[in-house]
């Protein structure tokens, strides 16, 4: 009976170990026409499948990792880690007795790092010389668990990786969920050495995606350009779509998130992914439109007669503060102005709502207190103006 694919393709008689698969592949590779994509492709496919299905070899001794060395493990044999002192400490007989943090009560002291045959010990000292050495006996933990700054986390990770991890995660969650998009903290956290652990980083990216998605139930809003910049610096959703879609898998909508906040921009213009020049341009437009709106408002205020006028103006001001998109602001302001010229004060709001549904809908549903605050402040000012106007 002839052997089955992929073993046959590699010239193997039966299922083999990974080592044998590699040797067979190397031999075949030297025989085939390596410039023929079909032959090469067929061999590669078989190689990949065979490596996946290879017989398990006896686990090769693993090279000790940095963390293991520091903890006194060698990884020579994962199943039986080097026995540390006092392997089986009797459980505390008196639970109600005051627990003291004496060094002896701590699990174990780190053993001097082990050197393996490849001589990996020296670099530990040489290259990590400037990072604080793990203390001989774990220092008593500070009472305040969160009194650690972002900048200190890397140092802490050397002493107490688990604690650094958990603080990191808390800070990351806070930054992600902060009302005002704490992009500074996010950037600082993602720039840490400890955040460059590949597995952790991947999970952080997924968390970022999920949070963005829940926060952006209305993709019209988008997030600050700064956020786009942080995403781009650390995960490159915009420039590395191929990689991002591989990593994020079913979270396919990352493109929507990335481009979401520029959705009302006409198709021909590029999404606003924050290159400096583009920012500047929109900044200028922003300024121009703010001036335009203020100008229109000044004229309106001069003509104002009754309470309705003030409501209209305050709505317009609130709109102005709440939405960065200059077109929306300008549009809302113009409608309000036209309405007031035509003495259509009451219907003006409805008109604005009709013309800019997203804008006015947000007015009632937005959860961002900062915006509501500005809105309230504006309203107070307008009422005060109205009262002064009436009784002065």
């Amino acid at each position, binding site marked *: 009976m002839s052997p089955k694919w992929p073993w046959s393709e590699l010239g193997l008689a039966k299922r083999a170990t990974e080592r044998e698969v590699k040797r067979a592949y*190397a031999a075949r590779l030297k025989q085939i026409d390596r410039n023929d994509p079909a032959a090469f492709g067929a061999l590669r496919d078989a190689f990949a499948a065979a490596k996946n299905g290879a017989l398990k070899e006896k686990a090769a001794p693993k090279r000790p990792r940095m963390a293991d060395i520091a903890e006194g493990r060698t990884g020579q044999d994962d199943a039986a880690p080097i026995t540390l002192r006092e392997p089986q400490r009797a459980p505390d007989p008196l639970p109600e007795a005051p627990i003291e943090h004496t060094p002896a009560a701590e699990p174990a002291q780190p053993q001097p790092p082990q050197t393996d045959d490849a001589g990996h010990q020296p670099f530990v000292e040489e*290259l990590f010389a400037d990072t604080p050495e793990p203390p001989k006996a774990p220092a008593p933990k500070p009472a305040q668990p969160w009194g650690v700054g972002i900048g200190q986390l890397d140092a802490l990770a050397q002493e107490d990786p688990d604690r650094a991890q958990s603080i990191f995660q808390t800070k990351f969650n806070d930054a992600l969920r902060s009302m005002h998009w704490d992009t500074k903290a996010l950037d600082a956290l993602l720039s840490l050495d400890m955040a460059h652990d590949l597995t952790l980083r991947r999970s952080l990216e997924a968390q970022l995606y999920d949070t963005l998605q829940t926060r952006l139930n209305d993709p019209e809003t988008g997030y600050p350009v700064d956020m786009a910049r942080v995403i781009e610096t650390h995960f490159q959703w915009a420039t590395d779509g191929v990689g991002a879609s591989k990593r994020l898998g079913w979270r396919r909508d990352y493109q929507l998130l990335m481009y979401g906040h520029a959705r009302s921009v006409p198709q021909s213009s590029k999404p606003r992914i924050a290159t400096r020049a583009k920012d500047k341009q929109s900044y200028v437009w922003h300024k121009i439109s703010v001036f335009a709106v203020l100008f229109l408002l000044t004229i309106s205020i001069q003509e104002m007669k009754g309470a309705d006028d003030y409501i209209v103006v305050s709505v317009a001001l609130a709109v102005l503060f709440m939405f960065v998109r200059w077109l929306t602001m300008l549009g809302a302001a113009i409608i309000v102005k036209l309405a007031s010229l035509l003495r259509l004060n009451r219907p003006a709001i409805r008109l604005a709502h009709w013309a800019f549904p997203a804008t006015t809908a947000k007015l009632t549903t937005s959860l961002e207190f900062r915006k509501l605050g500005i809105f309230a402040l504006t309203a107070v000012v307008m009422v005060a103006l109205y009262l002064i106007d009436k009784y002065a």
Partner: protein
Amino acid sequence: MAQPIIGIDLGTTNSLICVFEDGAPRLLTNALGHLLTPSVVSLDGDKVLVGEAARDRQTTHPKDTAAAFKRAMGTDTTFQLGRKKLRAEELSSLVLRKLKDDAEAALGQTIRDVVVSVPAYFNQGQRQATIAACAMAGLNAVRLVNEPTAAALAYGLQDRDGESQFLVFDLGGGTFDVTVLEHFDGVMEVKASSGDAFLGGEDFSEALAKAMADKIGTPWAKLAKDAQHQLRLQADVAKRHLSGKDDFEARLKLDGAHHTLTLTRADFEQACAALIKRLHRPIERCFYDTGLDTDALDRVILVGGATRMPMIRQMVARQFKRLPEMTIDPDHAVALGAAVQAALVAEDRALDDVVMTDVSPFSVGIETATKLKNGTVIGGFFQPIIERNTPLPASRQDSFGTMDDNQTQLRVDIYQGEAPKVSDNVHLGQFLLDVPKGKAGHEGMFVRITYDPSGLIEVEATSITDGKKAGLVIRDNVSNLTEAEIAKRLKQMQAFKMHPREDEENTAFLARIRRLYEMASGDDRHLLQGMLMEFEGALEGQDPAEISRMRGDMGETLDRIDDYYVS
């Protein structure tokens, strides 16, 4: 006699040429007896200077000198040298010609076929410009090899029976590449490559130059172009010193004023924090693409002059939890490997049992559009067909449908890159395919892309219902230039006369004295002026023994002055 097998490392800062003979690569020296030829071109009257003399003329004749032009490969940027305007590939062709002349003198043979190394992260346009540069230097680039792959070949040859999984970290003057490879049974298999074509040692120099400007008290942006240029040159020297010691006293001259600055390594590292951040991205990409963990690596190899900076080694050690290696001089590894690749292409008997497989560093695909529910069509989406880091040669196919009823043609627009929007990727070519009329989505095509290790990309579209075909071949090789055009440009470039080789040592020596004169102050200036006059006198005398004796004597004094001033 057989043609020599030649590999060339055409670097942003330094270039090298290497021959493969008797089963091993050997680096060739230039007219000054050095292995490294700085990639700097300067015009002296109607003569072209390349190498060290040109590098020294960056200080004394900045307007006639160009450097780091590799960064502008594949663009329309021009460099002004005196009254001449030159493109990056033309300047590169002058460097290549100098390497060729020197190597021919060393070997006593003419050179034609060569393998040239390029950053793995060079795109098709940049690769084509490199090949055009070779043609303009009278060289035939039979193959381009990715720089980190070349470095890996050099290491692999040292240890042929080795079996390991390793990473090459190549930070040169202008580009950064990371490549993960596996070596077993004579097979050198690239698993993934990634990089940043605009990140290198020069950026670190610039960051330091900005920090130095702040220390002097004039913000970088306020400095004139010339002053920025001078400060950058001085920062480059200071940077090298800071690789050896923790602080460095820089004595420099800017706009006629002398300054003494104390620079510390910590200052420098702080100024480079943003650059270090950028180094992480390609590394992460590589590992996500291979699905490997950093623990799976057996070795981490450093290549490129900029990896001498301690902050780079520290970053590498932290990221990979391994001691990085540089057992082959990081300046030489790429050139040695390029020669090994040349031997592989020439099927040299010494390498019978060695095979190298590389990957495509970029994805290649076509543009697509979608129709929203309300009928608006949004185009410009990139659909990769061959994903990046696919082993080459590769041939993949995908199918696409029509968008409108009774559409008669499909436009196939080919792009290279990773961005979801084609506008951010590199356009490679375009063609149209006729399809029979039918309902939207009921007609369509298969698009097959074939990509081979020599850089040839073949695209073929087949109409699904009637089997009509259309296609396009995109070559890395001398492609879009016709034979006549190449001949014309070769002739144009040959109008530039190289400075005579016999004279080169003296020219370089004079350029060095003049550069130091520019930098120095007080008594040193008088001393240098005297040396200049004395040496020029000796040159008049035309006694080679006397001239060479004088070069030796004065050289020591120059070394001392060089050490004192940053320049």
